[in-house]
């Protein structure tokens, strides 16, 4: 029980530190990430309930959510000032790359969704 209390304490501390230390831009991206994650979970649950026909549409939609999640997470990582040393990229360039990858992703998703 004390371990559970410990875990709850850690989570609360984590939440506090998160609220204080992350800038607004990153919090916005985090909210978008949560939204995309929920969309993906709903799609997967629907597929489990109803079945996988047509499979290409399910795959296309699910990979679209996973792709959006990954791209937004990568953007967040590149915009985070703490990671400036590992990445050699300006925030504007990071966003431009993000848009480029999204164009490719959505073109393919539109082609595959049938």
């Amino acid at each position, binding site marked *: 029980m004390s371990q559970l209390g410990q875990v709850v304490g850690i989570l609360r501390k984590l939440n506090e530190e998160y609220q204080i230390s992350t800038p607004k831009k990153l919090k916005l991206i985090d909210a978008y990430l949560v939204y995309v994650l929920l969309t993906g979970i709903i799609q997967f649950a629907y597929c489990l309930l109803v079945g996988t026909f047509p499979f*290409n549409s399910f*795959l296309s939609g699910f990979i679209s959510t996973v*792709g959006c999640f*990954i791209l937004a997470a990568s953007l967040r990582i590149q915009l985070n000032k703490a990671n400036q040393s590992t990445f*050699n990229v300006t925030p504007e360039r990071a966003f431009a790359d993000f848009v480029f990858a999204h164009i490719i992703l959505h073109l393919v998703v539109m082609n595959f969704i049938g």
Partner: protein
Amino acid sequence: MTTVNDNSSEYITNSSSSSSAGLKSLITVIILICVCISGFISRLFSIIRFESVIHEFDPWFNYRSTVYMTDNGFYNFLNWFDDLAWYPLGRIVGGTVFPGLMVTSGAIHWFFHMINIPIHIREICVFLAPIFSGLTALATYLLTKELWSKRAGLFAAAFIAIAPGYSSRSVAGSYDNEAIAIFALIFTYYLWIRSIKTGSIFWSSCTALSYFYMVSAWGGYVFIINLIPVHVGFLLLLGRYSLRLYVSYSIFYILGLILSMQIPFVGFQPVRTSEHMIAAGIFILLQAYTFFDYLYNKLRYVRNIETIFFNLSVIISIIVFAIVVLLTYTGYIAPWSGRFYSLWDTSYAAKHIPIIISVSEHQPTTWTSFFFDLHLLICLYPVGAWFCVKDLNDERVFILLYAVFASYFAGVMIRLMLTLTPCVCILAAIALSKTLDYYADAESSEMVSNFDDSVSICDETENDENNQDLDNNAENIDETDDDDQNFLTSNIKIIVVTCIAMMLLLFIVHCTWITATAYSSPSIVLVSYNSDGTRAIVDDYREAYYWLRQNTPEKARIMSWWDYGYQIAGMSNRTVLVDNNTWNNSHIALVGKAMASNETEAYKIMTMLDVDYILVIFGGVIGFSGDDINKFLWMVRIAEGEHPKDIKEKNYFNENKEYRVDKSGSPILFNCLMYKLCYYRFGELYTDSAQPSGFDRTRSVEIGHKNFDLEHVEEAYTSANWIVRIYRVKKLSNRFQAKDALEKSTSSLSEESFEKNHRKGVILNKPHVKKGTKKSIHRT
């Protein structure tokens, strides 16, 4: 004194660095242009000797598909149902072919016609491979530049341009998938290394796009989608995790996944087969690892946090692995397909799928072919690998993993020497470059050596700061080398450089000679040299295929062994039963059974399959060893796999368990269709004045069964040197054995002939006559 020297060396560096950089880039461009031109020219031997014609077997199908695509458009090509092949089944070409090659040629053709250069599609197809070999050299230069330095890159480009291991599959006329696939492979690897080093979303997306091109080009894309996850896994194990790794692999995997499923032939395989599961597993593991890493950075103060996260990572990887195994067991995920499983268990194909093991390219590699294909490079290859191990960083882990896996695969199957060649070229270039960095530096004065050091340091800081430890190491080594340099005078260095130059010259001579003699034969035109050096061209194949094209009805169906299916469909434009795609083993086994049975049994199978003509290849007159009699045992084995009761391989050997066609051969062999078709009328021919008639020059024996007649087929055409023999299948006669019944009725009346007549019977469903009862017969 040191300060003055430092200042002056800095001054020299600043003022001449711009002009030296300009000079270096000019030399680089000139060398790369020479490399591309030499790669192109060294592949043109067969064009110069014969003519611009498509070689071998598979390229004929690719050529026919490309012609169909340029005539009918891309969408009709994707939806093409080919009824000329695999009669009566047909083949869905759009869904069973990798379209990248045809699309590339079609795009070049469209572009040229758009700017009003009316170039024929055959020229584009023939010259596509040499042009792409130049692009491969450029891609290898870029990859090695990322791995080591520009100087090593130039060596690597020069090596891959002429290495026989690569040029064997990309001579002019060899219009096959490997022509563009190797370029796509190296270019994808270059983009992957670039995206790991920068961690940029743009480079990762470009890697995914290049991977898509590779998936459209060749079935060997499985190599990429397994090597890159293994690389990521090794980096995690070595503790070289970084956020750049996360960004680059996640984006590459997810974009590559959905892009690869756009090719109809690949379909849903990336989520359904074991070959792609490693990539998915590493993807999930990487997400979990990054999440834990993020939490770890936030929760540093909690005690034992490292062990908790380490255990969680291990637990998650075990769970993922267990889920994959469970899914494979229950059948949701298909197990490793036969082609790839036989790389792991090399005896699998021999026992279960004889058609895989019968292909000559799938045989294990002999050690001599390593030297034959790679000469000097295979000796420098371990040296380069060792240099990479000594100065390890993220991208050198990749090239080492590539080296290990490619070496194993090249040892298993001779066809996979092709994937080993770029790796060997890169590592040999690294070894040579590092050696020459030391020995070609002939002037050992301090000022010039400082200048060289600063230039080389400038070179390596063009890559990003993560090579800082490497630069520090380089500076440290160079400082200690200054003392070592005093031991070796410039004379010794010049001697070493001269020896290396001589070895490289020998390498060039070897590569050119090998490409000219061993790998430039078009297989469709054979040549032999007389004792006075003049050429005798054997053009039997084309002669026979064009006879078929001009003298047979359009809907005629040709039965031959599957090797020649693509050529017949391409050059004669006739329907074939089986071709090189070999997707239906039972159909091939039926054809094999027909070839291996006696004439009556074979006739039944041929009427069932509506065969009009049979084509066999026979090399006994000129000594050609790639003919059907030499391939015959494979036909028997494949037929035995499907019809074990009717065909048994041991029946075709003689008493000494040998496969012989002379007098000691087995009678079943003498009566089978293949033997009869190959040796019909051969018994009357004198091939060698010193030998008896019917002397087979390929097997060097006199054949055992001569002067026989054919019952159900008749000879239609035999080419000039008897290489291609075409037979027409006779239709069912009007009255079954009417000739025999007439002959027998004029024979003397005796008990035995009575019984014989009644037993033969020309009436079907005739009521059975009890023995001994006389029947009165009118005799004329």
